[in-house]
């Protein structure tokens, strides 16, 4: 099977986010960049399918600035075979639509049998790119999947997802299809040192918009249907209040405050 994995580089989950003075974005200096955690599940799942189906290959595709190369290399070190980075200054400011368009374009000629990705990227939390890519490529989609079974002939995939009330929904899709991973799909492996060494010499290509046959007007800020006006941090939570006194008096005081100050009861 030919498997493609969509991967995004995001700030480490522990990052303390700071907003630029002009509110146009976040300050990126000093941020530690990592693979989007949901994409780790996608890479791992691709590798497990590859290990079961002889002759399979796994290609990692990412759109982002130059530094994304390091994260693609992490995927290669885990065991993926090749990587593609779409990097072009014109892509700055791309929204989900423009991103999906560029990703779909780069994947079209690859003829993947299966495309895996994370259910959402933990930076923007949009959870829209996988669906849009599926639309652009005219493929079936299965989102938020925590169990995936590919049929022996590689023609179908059975996908499981949790729905409300603790029940499971089971989807069957014809391949090629795009499947977005949820936590619980697997336990991603760690890249071993030999894996990291081998990653250096694995095929990797970088493409810009020209090579993709896309114009700046179609993707990037100019092609975006969504404009971000400003970024701001949520208001800091006011410190909690401790009401002193005997429990009975304190409870009375609490109810009074809820009624008169917070106006919630």
């Amino acid at each position, binding site marked *: 099977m030919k498997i493609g994995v969509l991967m995004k580089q995001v700030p480490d989950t522990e990052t303390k986010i700071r907003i630029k003075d002009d509110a146009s974005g976040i300050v990126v200096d000093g941020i530690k960049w990592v693979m989007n955690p949901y994409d780790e599940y996608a890479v791992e799942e691709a590798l497990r399918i590859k290990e079961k189906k002889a002759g399979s290959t796994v290609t990692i595709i990412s759109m982002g600035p130059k530094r994304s190369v390091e994260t693609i290399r*992490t995927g290669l070190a885990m065991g993926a075979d090749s990587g593609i980075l779409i990097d072009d200054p014109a892509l700055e400011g791309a929204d989900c639509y423009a991103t999906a368009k560029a990703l779909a374009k780069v994947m079209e000629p690859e003829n993947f049998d299966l495309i895996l990705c994370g259910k959402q990227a933990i930076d923007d939390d949009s959870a829209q790119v996988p669906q849009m890519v599926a639309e652009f490529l005219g493929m079936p989609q299965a989102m938020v999947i925590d169990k995936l079974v590919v049929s022996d002939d590689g023609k179908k995939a059975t996908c499981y997802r949790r729905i409300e009330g603790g029940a499971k929904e089971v989807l069957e899709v014809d391949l090629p299809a795009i499947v977005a991973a949820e936590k619980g799909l697997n336990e991603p492996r760690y890249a071993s*040192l030999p894996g990291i060494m081998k990653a250096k010499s694995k095929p990797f290509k970088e493409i810009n918009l020209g090579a993709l046959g896309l114009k700046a007007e179609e993707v990037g800020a100019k092609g975006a249907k969504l404009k971000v006006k400003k970024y701001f941090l949520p208001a800091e939570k006011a410190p909690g209040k401790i009401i002193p006194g005997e429990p009975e008096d304190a409870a009375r005081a609490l109810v009074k405050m809820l009624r008169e100050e917070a106006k919630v009861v």
Partner: protein
Amino acid sequence: MVFEPSAELKQFLETIRKFVEKECYPVEMEIEEKGEVPEHIIKGLCQLGLFGVTTPTEYGGLGLSIIDYCLILIELSRTNAAVRSQITTNNGVGSKGILFDGTEEQKKKYLPSLASGEKMASFALTEPGAGSDASAISTTAVKKGSNWAINGTKYFITNAPRASIFTVLALTDKEKRARGGITAFIVEKGTPGLVIGKIFKAMGNVGSKPAEVIFEDCQVPEENIIGGPKMVGQGFRTAMKSLNEARITLSASMIGFAERALKLARDYAKIRVQFGKPIAENQAIQWMLADSATEIYASRCMLFDAAARVDAGQKVDAMCSMTKVFASEMLCRVTDRSLQIHGGTGYIKESPIEHLYRDARMFRIVEGTSEIQRMIIARDVLKD
């Protein structure tokens, strides 16, 4: 002196840090309570290739230098000491004898399964009557036909209950002792007469399972003498070479522990408010943090200097001892200050500094006590 690891090693160190934070931190209390390192942690260490870091690639290891291994140990030692103990016998005293002085057949037979972590190695030198004075061992090996029969009791042997391969030092000539009378044998688990005795409940390093290893007419073939029959009587030198290198790598771990302890203290001091302000704003606390940071830095400088010399093949026994004695005593001071900064919280089991403080105490004793290190250093100072 700036030591920069390769880009690949840096990426690997990041991976180990992630492994420690994601996999080890959540089970720290479990390790303390059950006295055992969970199976999935050991599997993870295998998958990362950490059981054969300095083992040459031709024997299935990663083939890294001692300095590289030190960097790895610093990362891996930011959690319970028993986690690093899982890999250190295979990487160190449990395999180095075979690597340094073993025959080609022995290397081919044993090193790959030790490097992969499939098998675990232990190093059995210490006995009830022979600790610092290792030459005083009373375990004997006597030739019986083409076999050697081993009799005696070893104790405090790390990882023994899990081990498949033991490096055992036994007396083959009571007169000569350290000067040609001690031989190193490879004894495999399951050999009749090899019995694991009492598992000791130690103050720290909980989960590393130091145990008694008893030999009752345990017969091993001649080809199990490390280096073959020509090496009869040469085992003490083999053991000392392995221990010397271990002093450096052990010191690397101490730096990892100390850095964790300092970080815990710093984070706590910044959020703990007493007298209306974070305790970190008091000079008394700041000086403790400053002293700890300074001593950690000094240890790092000593470590990388000594490790680079070992990698370059220089004979620097005294420097290895200086690094070990300084780093182990530094670690005890740093964990003590860190616990102090935690106040009563630090004295409670839920606090990681509580087990770090206990783990730290071991390093002034094992692989040569502080006093023995000073003896080695003084001998070097006085020699001219």
